[in-house]
């Protein structure tokens, strides 16, 4: 459910900041699923995996926000549709 909400956010919003945040929601949904299945299976491997998911999320946010800042310097916008640097 949460993953789906994040997916809606990614697919239908144009503000790159909101899209990044929606990706975070999706990562969180996956982490929660890992933790639930770890509790079901009765071992701690899933929880270790959630730890790595959080690590990856932190790295992703740092790089993503850096790209947003660089983008905002180049084009003064946060609208993902107006970013067409790779087009020609």
């Amino acid at each position, binding site marked *: *459910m*949460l*993953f*789906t*909400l*994040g*997916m*809606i956010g*990614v*697919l*239908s*919003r*144009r*503000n790159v*900041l*909101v899209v*990044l*945040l*929606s990706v*975070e*929601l999706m990562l*969180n949904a996956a*982490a*929660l699923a890992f*933790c*639930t*299945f*770890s*509790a*079901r*299976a*009765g071992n*701690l*491997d899933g*929880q*270790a995996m*959630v*730890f*790595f998911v*959080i*690590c*990856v*999320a*932190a*790295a*992703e*946010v*740092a*790089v993503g*926000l*850096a*790209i*947003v*800042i*660089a983008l*905002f*310097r180049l084009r003064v916008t*946060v*609208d993902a*549709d107006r970013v067409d640097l790779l087009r020609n």
Partner: protein
Amino acid sequence: MTFFFWIFAAVIVGSALLAITRRNAVATALWAALSFVGIAGEFVLLQAYFLAVVEVLVYAGAIMVLFLFVIMLLNLREEDLRVTEGPRLHWFGLILAACFLGGLVVTCRRAGLFDEPLGAPPSGETASVAPVLFQNYLLPFEVASFLLLSAIVGAVLITKRRLP
């Protein structure tokens, strides 16, 4: 226990819904922070205490502060925040996500994931998570640290580079 599960689930889903529907980026970030706190609550119910603390520290703390910092740093005007949303893309995204949710529920039912648990949930205190992290998953742990380092270097490089 079930009562608290539904409370936290309602908080997570409700605040996530509010987060992706708000126009203002700051409101979005704050609702998402509430959603992360709800997920930390679910971790506590799953007896993953270490993960609950990490979730609050990293997500509701560090990542949210970083997001709000960037939003403030960009100093967006009102008309920048109110980006016009295309209706076509909007509905396409909704339909695609609904199909995905349906597929997810069907797959989980077929795999029997809604049945009774196989064993008792393990206690996820720091003392019991640590041996798993540092013995079974030592190499991924070190790779994760390298990933974070490269993310730091990459972020600084991207933001510092002089643009043409």
